[in-house]
């Protein structure tokens, strides 16, 4: 996989991008990812379990994330779940996706389509 460029995966499916963002600062288990995505988006995006694990399966195959064997401190470990960590390749892909979206927004602005101010 070493010779693969992150751009070859673009555009990332929204669920995959969200999962990468949720793992950006911390290793999480599946349910943790769902909660993180939900809180980051003010409950706008709720990943269903099916979508989550299907995405995780593909992201593992694509080397975007890895399953890690070391555990957080036992008091933080939630029911001995499986934890996932973003890879360097995953970070590169997320960055490339962000760039792509950024370019897209720039083009939209140039055409007079301004996003609403939050």
């Amino acid at each position: 996989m070493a010779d693969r460029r992150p751009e070859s995966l673009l555009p990332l499916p929204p669920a995959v991008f969200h999962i990468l963002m949720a793992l950006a600062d911390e290793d999480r288990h599946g349910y943790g990812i769902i909660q993180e995505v939900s809180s980051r988006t003010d409950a706008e995006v709720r990943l269903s379990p099916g979508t989550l694990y299907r995405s995780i399966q593909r992201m593992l195959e694509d080397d975007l994330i890895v399953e890690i064997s070391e555990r957080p401190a036992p008091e933080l470990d939630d029911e001995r779940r499986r934890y996932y960590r973003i890879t360097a390749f995953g970070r590169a892909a997320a960055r490339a996706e962000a760039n792509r979206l950024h370019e897209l927004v720039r083009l939209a602005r140039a055409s007079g389509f301004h996003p609403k101010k939050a």
Partner: protein
Amino acid sequence: MRIYRVVLRLYPKSFRAEYAAEMEKDFAHHWRDAAAGARAWLVLNAVVDTLWNAARVHADITKQDVRYSLRSVRRAAGFSATAVAVAALGIGATTAAFSLADHVLIRPLPFPESERLVRVWEELSLRGYARVEPSPPNFEDWRRQSTMFERLEAFTGFGGAMTGRGEATPVIGATVTPGMLPMLGRQAAIGRILTEADVARDAERPIVISDRLWQSLFAASPDVIGQTLTLDRTTYSIIGVMPADFYFPERRTDFWRMLRFSASNGDDDRGNNYLQVIGRLKPGVSIEDAQAELRVIAANLGRLYPKELEGVSATMRPWRDQVAQQPRLLLLGLVGASLCVLLIACTNLANLLMSRALARRTEFAVRAAVGASVDRLVRQMLTESMMLALIGGVLGVLVALASLPLLVRLVPTALPIAELPPLDLRMLTGTLVLTTVTGLAFGLLPAVRVCRKTDPAALKDGARGGTSRGTERMRSTLVVAEIVASVVLIVCVGLLTQALLAVQRVDPGFKVDNLLTMRTALPSTDYGALDRRLQFYSHVLDRVHALPGVESASYISWLPMGAFRGGIWEVLSSNPDATAPDGFAPLRGGERQSASIRFVTPRFFETVGTPVLRGRDVAASDIVTSPFVAVVSESFANKFFPDQDPIGRSFAIGLAARTIVGVVGDIKVRGLERDSEPQVYMPAAQQRMLFFYAPKDLVVRASVPPATLAPAVRGIIASAAPELPITAVQTMEQLVAGETAPRVVQLRVLGGFAVIALLLAAIGIHGLLAFTVTSRAREIGVRIALGAKARDIMWMIVGRSAALTGTGVIVGAVLAYAAGRSLQAVLFGVEPANPAVFGAAAAIAALMALAGSLMPAWRAVRVDPIEVTRSE
């Protein structure tokens, strides 16, 4: 929670193994957090989510498998090509046979709500006829009195000459009651159809034409409406063109004109049976109810007209079920045979795949070692077999499309359906199902067999190539199944060949060779008068007799085994009875018997080679002013004048009393395979009435090849009547060959199937034995090293083949006997337990087995003991 666990089973096993536990935990979280009312919503969400995502996970895996399969299919191109070809043959044969049978026997007729359409007949049980065309007065009474039909309509066929547009052309059409086309429920493509409103416009002679006629005659011009068409010198005005896929009453019908009953045409005669009747039942009315009511009506009519309608009832059956037993059985036989071919193809493929899978055990073991689960491997193999089957299926459709035109003779012309089944969704869906079943059938067994034993031992270098006993037994069973199916096919082909030979051996009652035949239908407008007809006959016959190469020639109403085989009349005594419908009293004992009647010109029997057994032929001196005479067939004499000299006896038939002047041999008027009525031949010069029976078929005995006479004879007829079309120009040999044509076609197809089956079975035996030799090479080597003779080794292999073949032949013979019994109706008296056929089938199977085992046996004998034991 339990529900969720069940729903999760929709995911592939491999996915479940990885994530199901986590997903259940997540779900438990949500469940805990949800209020009691929201839980139902939660479950619904989970179900929808699982359905959606499980489908996509499956799709992902299939995509991977397909990619992998494509690679492995490409790598083993030889194997793949063989497998695809075998699958294409099996699927193609079955698709062709099934779509043909579906087309002829099952598919609804191409009319709206066609299941309500029924054919209606008179039933003359007293005279032994189950179905007779109704007469106009009976039809009209039924129509008036019955309450069960939405409509009851009638038609009659019409063949005539179209003139006024170049050369006179023969055309076939139908004369229909004005409600017929509206009842069928199809609209015209251009203009309109005939309706009841056209009765008022009778003087304009409205006519509707077929798409074919429109294309050929009017070059598909859109302003055809209002143009005229001349048929038998009557001019009709075109009011509509039917769509190309409108066939009624049969495929070749080119126009529809209006049927009007008139007394001058004999339409007030209750014994004038010539109508074809079709009814549309009211919605919800069963055919039994309609028949019961019609029988009551017929019984009442019988009381009103006791003389004419004694014993006359009514009968009906769905129009769809009109296919006669013989074409039905021929088609079903074809379907059965194609299933045999498919079975053989599947078993062959299973065996091919099995040996390939065994050869790939190392590959599977590697994949299993790196974590592929057994179900993933099974799935992978199934994807591969499905892919081979699908490619085979696509090719199979092409095979079917290419072979269907060869089977046209098996589609009866008398049905209102297209010549060939259309390539439509129905056929493609059928093929897809067939392909899927095929792919599963030949893929599943080997996949499960092999993957159950993905033992790591296969990884070891120099692992034994041996196979488990179970696999060996499975492969043997498959080979036996192939032999069984081939034996069944060979026996059926043998029985049907015997039947064909038996039919061809039937004496038609005349000498088939060196006869030229052709028809000139004489329109009643010009040839209604006897003088005009006799003038025509003598003009033609005098000149034909003068042609070099002609021995004799004659005209007859209809040739035996031709397009029209009916034409029967009740045999009465010669005692006049003014109160009886025909003017003569019934035969002694009041028994009612019919005979086939034909009018002939002199020298007919000499021409066709039918022996005159007693008395004389019809003579030139038998004219309308001399005493009326008849020549009868031997069976007629035996039946009506047993134990006495029939010459000089009298009887009445066809509205006249006649004296027998000659007895001739019987002719198979109705065909080689059917019983024919006794025959009565009357001089054409004594035909004052019954214009329908006027001689129109010319037959010429030649001393040169008969076809070479055709141009000269045509020229003579054209010089006598340039406006008449000449049709059905053929030798008598061609005419009689038409009798057995469907059988010949079916046999050719079945024969082809049998050859394919034999080939495949031989390949199957070869494959199995070759594999046995390879996997037991070491054992064979050891045996040879220990002093086994070449003969022993050879016997080891051939004996195995003999055991398989013997089992296959015994089981096959039993099944073949059952198949033969179900075909009995088309076997024409050939016994299903025909020892010659079964013996030949066994011998052929043995030869095939021998051919399949020769190479492996040779290889076994040449095994080098040092070579194979060295690796130990």
